[in-house]
């Protein structure tokens, strides 16, 4: 079930209600800005990308499922992808990656049948699990999620064998997945 506020905001955005955009901004600008700033580490660039994120949401909201869609999930992914697009453009590798990110932020991917309470429980579990990661596990997740690097690129940057990096990524994600499953099972 979608958070009622989000459902209403999304519905009004589809009707091109500019006041709904203000509500969306007030609710998610902090999150959007935080994710982008963490990736690009430059406040001025981050603000430009925040603007681009909200513009993109406005332009794409007609595809959003107001019954089952997760507005927060969608907008945070759009924000992250704007930052990664920017970082990849600095690394001179736009094009292929950009197309991939476009495909992976289609709002139809962000749907759920679960309650807001269930998601909150699992989110808390993930937050706690992130604290249990060791430094190297945390580092590889930073590079995949906030820098958009592939495992090969991470291996080069960390100057570690690719197998080691894959093992770190796998173990970190497994710990997080397990925390989600356990949180779901505890309800």
């Amino acid at each position, binding site marked *: 079930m979608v958070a009622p506020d989000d459902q209403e905001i999304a519905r009004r955005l589809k009707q091109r209600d*500019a006041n709904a*955009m203000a509500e969306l901004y007030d609710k998610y600008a902090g999150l959007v800005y935080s994710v982008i700033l963490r990736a690009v580490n430059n406040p001025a660039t981050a603000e430009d990308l925040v603007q681009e994120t*909200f513009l993109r949401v406005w*332009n794409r909201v007609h595809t959003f499922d107001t019954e089952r869609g997760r507005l927060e999930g969608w907008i945070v992914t759009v924000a992250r992808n704007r930052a990664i697009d920017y970082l990849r453009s600095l690394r001179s590798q736009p094009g292929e990656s950009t197309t991939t990110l476009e495909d992976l932020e289609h709002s139809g991917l962000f749907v759920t049948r679960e309650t807001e309470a269930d998601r909150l429980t699992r989110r808390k579990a993930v*937050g706690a699990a992130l604290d249990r990661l060791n430094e190297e596990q945390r580092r590889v*997740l930073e590079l995949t*999620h*906030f820098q958009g690097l*592939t495992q090969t690129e991470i291996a080069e940057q960390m100057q570690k064998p690719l197998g080691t990096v894959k093992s770190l990524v796998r173990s970190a994600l497994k710990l997080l997945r397990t925390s989600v499953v356990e949180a779901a099972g505890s309800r």
Partner: protein
Amino acid sequence: MNSDQFTDLCELYALGALDPEERTEFEAHLAGCADCRAGLTQAIELNEMILSATPRVEPSPQLRRRVLAGFGQPVKDRSRGVAWTLTLAAAATLILAFAWNLEHKAHLADNVELTRLREIQQILEAPATKQVTFGPQPAAPHGSIFVHQKLGMILIADGLPAPPPGWTYESWVVPKDGAPQPIEAFRAPDGRGISLLRSPLPVDQMKAVAVSLEPTNVPVTKPTKLIFATPLG
């Protein structure tokens, strides 16, 4: 690669962070594996939770005004209590609607449009910008012109008839002395068009702004079919 190994890749695939060869292999597997398709849904949500766990840093209060100004929101800057005028808000609404109509699928087009929106926003926000309205009759072309001596000019016209096939709208500035100067070709989806002049405009030397129809893809020299001209003073 076995099924468990593919499952391990779901999060990275959802992030667009797989190497090209891995991505191709994963997508081929995904098509025939229901477990991995379910795993992908969960992976997308896990990625969101990781991103959302980012410690919060609040953006500047000015950003709120900057972002929402583009959406026609009559914004009160919460930190300073500054209200936008309804006129500028209405203009911004038209601009966003225009951007919406112009939307292309390509990312590049988004960036180009965003740059243009920023230039428009800069003119709208400048304290020295002056507004001229024209054509009060709703059935005829009507709208506003926003002029800034140093930044340029925005023409917003509504009620434009659909151009015949092979014809395109062109905007012009008409000097007090000399021939009309073309600004740019523009589209008018749903009868609404916006034209932007990105250079200083010596208003005291200008007589009017005009819109004409010109044959598409033909260099313009002078207005071919004048639609309207409105004085700047």
